């Protein structure tokens, strides 16, 4: 890729390499999901999957602010978090196909990828189901004095689950190094969040003594900046935070959710896709800052696509576990 050798960007002093890395990571997520959808369409993937397309800047902006041994917990829409935290696409695809080479030996599938090596405590198919786990990981970090931070990703639908407030209260009382990242993509399944959420999201954190901020979830640099601050704060013993990331899922609730007009308009989808696409936004910025040119960005895309294709190939060819392994 043609870029200046790790120059500091004028605005933030962060190495440009970091932003290029983020660009690549976002492309990885997008193109990973492209393959997932393809596998579904070709009837090669058992069950369903919830794509993260459109929300890439959230996972990447946050995870880039983390150490490898920091913890994350993830959701049913978890591929993006896994990739951003450093999981290998080939073993992720293998898991999605139920193959033995998968992260969970095929036992987990799309909604349960977990990986101790990258601090991934696991995706979770219960909405808000991992909020306790993330808070517990922060509890360990504090008690064992490891300096680790835990990030709990959840969709805004999880705001409906009482356990979230129970653990925010605990985290605030005990000053735990945990960051609750609310990915508000405007919908829980087929219902707009305004129909299910009274009051104010940030106020919900603050009412429980949790520091709260919001950020444009389509701007990876903004996400990264605020995440870096909140992570430093948590690591510093200053307690938990709630970060509201405003974002949008481009496609259906899951791969089978094709006809969406009854709950949202094509125009709304179009506006998010064209005006605020996180990959375009960062790409344009990289170009405008002369940190990369269009050709370089294109070549990232094609490199990543090739990587994904070979990862898929690996997964498709990989053997299933044998039935005795069920026990």
């Amino acid at each position: 890729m043609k870029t200046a050798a790790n120059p500091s960007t004028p605005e933030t002093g962060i190495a440009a390499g970091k932003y290029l890395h983020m660009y690549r990571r976002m492309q990885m997520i997008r193109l990973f999901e492209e393959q997932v959808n393809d596998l579904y369409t070709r009837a090669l993937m058992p069950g369903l999957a919830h794509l993260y397309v459109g929300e890439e800047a959230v996972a990447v902006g946050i995870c880039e602010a983390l150490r490898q041994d920091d913890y994350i917990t993830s959701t049913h829409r978890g591929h993006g978090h896994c990739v951003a935290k450093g999981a290998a696409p080939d073993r992720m695809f293998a898991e999605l196909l139920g193959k033995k080479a998968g992260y969970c030996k095929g036992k987990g599938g799309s909604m349960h990828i977990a990986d101790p090596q990258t601090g991934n405590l696991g995706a979770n198919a219960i909405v808000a189901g991992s909020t306790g786990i993330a808070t517990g990981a922060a509890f360990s970090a504090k008690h064992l004095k490891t300096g680790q931070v835990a990030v709990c990703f959840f969709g805004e639908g999880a705001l409906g689950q009482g356990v979230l407030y129970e653990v925010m209260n605990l985290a605030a009382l005990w000053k735990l190094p945990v960051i609750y990242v609310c990915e508000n993509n405007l919908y829980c399944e087929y219902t707009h969040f305004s129909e299910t959420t009274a009051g104010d999201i940030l106020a919900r954190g603050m009412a429980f003594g949790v520091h709260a901020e919001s950020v444009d979830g389509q701007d990876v640099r903004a996400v990264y900046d605020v995440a870096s601050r909140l992570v430093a704060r948590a690591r510093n013993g200053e307690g938990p935070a709630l970060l509201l990331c405003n974002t949008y899922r481009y496609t259906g609730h899951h791969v089978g959710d094709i006809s969406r007009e009854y709950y949202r308009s094509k125009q709304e989808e179009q506006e998010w896709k064209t005006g605020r696409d996180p990959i375009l936004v960062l790409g344009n910025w990289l170009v405008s800052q002369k940190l990369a040119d269009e050709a370089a960005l294109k070549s990232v895309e094609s490199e990543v696509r090739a990587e994904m294709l070979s990862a898929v190939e690996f997964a498709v060819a990989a053997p299933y576990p044998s039935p005795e392994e069920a026990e």
Partner: protein
Amino acid sequence: MREVPVRELTFAQAVREALAEEMRRDSRVCILGEDVAEAGTPFKVLSGLVEEFGTDRVIDTPISEAGFTGVGVGAAMTGMRPVVDIMFGDFLTLTMDQLVNQAAKVHYMSGGKWKVPMVLRTTLGATRRSAAQHSQSLHAWLSHVPGLKVVMPSTPYDAKGLLKSAIRDDNPVVFFEDKMMYKQKGPVPVEEYTIPFGVADIKREGTDITLVATSSMVQVALGAAVLLEEAGISAEIIDPRTTWPLDEKTLVNSAKKTSRAMVIDEGYGRYGVTGEIASVIVEGAFYNLEAPVKRMGAMHVPIPFSPPLEDVTVPTEQTVFEGARSLCGK
């Protein structure tokens, strides 16, 4: 019953028709749940209801299973007849306090003063490649709890008749639908009917062995019965239809007649429904039994995602056939 005009409906249509009829009959019946209105649930079971009954009676909720189940309990105590929709049976975990410590106990604990005419509809069943948190069949838990009735329909006909009875019941009923069965078709009379609780249905008559099967396992048992027939074994299939109240008499009488019994249920095999039903049969038919009652349930592991793994965790026509044949000493 079979004299009146009959159509073929899917299981989902039968459920929907029961709800629609009861909602027309009684304006206090309403539906509470996630994505129940315009979306008609992810399984599309409720499609069309909001169009007829409006968002005042078909009510989308936040993802707050404990909260809206609790609202259902309170609403039921005070004049409504709510039907609470819990999308996946796995999410019952979140409603256990409302269901068990509240709904199930209010009537008894208040000395009969308050009633809770609430129905909680939910799903069970694996093999949908949905992994450990979206595949469980947790009806044994609720069957264990005094104050709850537990319904497990296995056909469109039963689903409709039992759901109408559930809605008319003055105390809480948990209604389990096999999510893999929604598209299965079966005959449903045009005329109105209800099916009482505690009455088992003999889904197939036979003489050599009694297969007691619940919900999803009834079709599996019927399939196995065909294989057994070919092997010269005549299987009688009993569907209890409600695990509580339980029609002990029909189970016991069948086992007395055939002298061999096997119980098949999709819940985890240990400490589940099969233990109770097998014990009831042993208690009632011991001296007529030629062999111990056999049980088949889900393997004692969290349900795995990978198809070749998942497929071996639940009873199938083949494993039921083999189990029954060996129980008959063949």
